[in-house]
């Protein structure tokens, strides 16, 4: 009972933070913010003030609007790549798990190969050869993260396909696609949603890591990773340049982790 309450609490707090961030990301173009690109070289790295609530960054850009536009980029790229990757993972994973045989063997070898590269190694390598752009970043993130969803979906499908309702559908002569879309996918949604929530946190971290390394958003695009990279160079006299994007990033990841935990408590009966 106590654990359940903790789960609900983390879902509530996490959801609150995430909704706030999504709200910022969606509303940013309509808010009365300064132009994120407009420069003011004289006031470069000036402290927070009434004109610039979070202070100014490199070339005197307004940090508040940079951080808000950065939320749009992070959440946009993150959500886009997670949706694409989970869609591919769901389709391939359920097909391989349901059909078995060669399809399964080939898919799992590809998944194993992608898992042979630790952490962000493959992401960084691919981003480095493709060159920095938002589109390339999405391609790289989808190409390296679909395997996680495919593996999860395949695992769940393997147990689902033994269930009576699948046997019943087969007995009625339902096609493979019909069984997948009508009988497997609805049952995959719960575990997939938990994984997507954590995946979104991971994707946002990947986005900011790439931007931090100069492999993500092209220079000038407001992005948390880039702000953090610029800010650490001027840490001694302008710590506010790191604090603003740092808090935004950590808060978003924290919110998604809390929400993921809460969702898992709620949707996965295996967790106490």
């Amino acid at each position, binding site marked *: 009972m*106590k*654990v359940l309450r*903790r789960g609900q609490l983390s879902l509530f707090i996490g959801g609150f933070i995430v909704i706030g961030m999504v709200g910022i990301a969606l509303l940013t173009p309509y808010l009365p913010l300064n132009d994120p690109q407009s420069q003011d070289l004289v006031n470069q790295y000036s402290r927070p003030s009434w004109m610039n609530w979070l202070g100014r960054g490199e070339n005197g850009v307004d940090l508040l609007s940079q951080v808000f536009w950065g939320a749009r980029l992070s959440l946009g790229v993150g959500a886009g790549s997670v949706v694409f990757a989970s869609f591919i993972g769901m389709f391939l994973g359920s097909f391989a798990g349901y059909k078995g045989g060669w399809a399964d063997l080939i898919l799992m*070898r590809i998944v*194993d*190969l992608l898992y*042979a*590269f*630790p*952490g*962000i*190694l*493959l992401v*960084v*390598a*691919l981003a*480095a*050869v*493709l*060159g920095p752009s938002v589109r390339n970043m999405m391609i790289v993130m989808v190409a390296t993260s679909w395997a996680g969803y495919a593996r999860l979906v395949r695992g769940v499908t393997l147990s689902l396909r033994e269930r009576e309702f699948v046997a019943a559908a087969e007995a009625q002569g339902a096609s493979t696609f019909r069984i997948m879309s009508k009988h497997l996918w609805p049952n995959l949604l719960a575990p997939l949603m938990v994984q997507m929530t954590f995946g979104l*946190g991971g994707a946002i*971290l990947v986005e*900011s*890591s790439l931007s*931090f*390394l*100069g*492999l993500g958003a092209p220079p000038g695009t407001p992005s948390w*990773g880039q702000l*953090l*990279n610029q*800010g*650490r160079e001027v*840490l*001694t006299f302008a*710590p506010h340049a*790191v604090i603003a994007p*740092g808090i935004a*990033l*950590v808060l978003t*990841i*924290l919110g998604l*982790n*809390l929400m993921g*935990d809460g969702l898992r408590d709620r949707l996965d009966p295996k967790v106490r």
Partner: protein
Amino acid sequence: MWSYIFRRILSVIPVVIGVVTLVFLLVHFIPGDPVEIMLGDAAEAADKARLRELLGLNLPLLKQYTLFWKQIFDGTWGHSISFSRPVLGLITERFGATMYLSLASLVVGVMISFPLGVNAARKAGTLADTCSVGFALIGMSIPIYVMAPVAVWFFSVQWRMFPVAGYGTLAHLFLPMICLGFGLSGILTRMIRTSVLECLGEDYIRTARAKGLKERNVLFKHALRNAMIPVITIMGNMLGGLLAGAVITETLFDWPGIGKLFFSAFQQRDYPLVQGVVLWISVSYVFINLFVDLAYSFVDPRVRYDS
């Protein structure tokens, strides 16, 4: 037992072949002409032709692929353009520094998370547990490039206790080690808590308690030994993650390891070097996992039968 070990060692071969193939193809994912991108538009045609020949890019794809394998076996791993030297030498010179930092942070991570995780599991549901879980969540949510500037601000800028960056003395090791170790301790605390909690619910723990063992013995002799098995697997993964993440850590702290080498490689578009570093880290990771699995089969006989 030996047949398991033999099979497990053999299973590495196809993975390594796959990794080498994918790393080979990396250069062919470059949009446009790799030579033009490496040298820039202004390069002389003769230079381009020479580089194309040096990299073997004028050969048919299959020839290039066999050449790639040949370079792996002759110990050069290709030729770095920015350093004008064989790639493998550049990597091995720097790998020690990377391993040094990675292992030190892993130790710090374990030292923080072990007491926290075990204590949280023992007192599950209490305030101590909630605090540990909260700490773990925060540790997991702070990436190194946020953690590092904060730590540098306090320890180097304000208190002047440790150098901002660099390599050489133990003082240089402190900040990167603590920052990385803190990040790892989040996931580790959580893993250890879950694992110990699971073990404490097992029948053999009840038996141990029923026969009157001291709680300390129940915990350390019976619960922890079993609880550590999944935790060690995660540590193998973490070491791999540290090697891959070195590209960020070493850039932050100016640490002269393969991560910094990797960073300079892709900044200078030195693709043979990029390939070399990626190959080295992923093959190391394959072998770390192999080692962890083999170590298991000695410690835990059940592993041999499962697979």
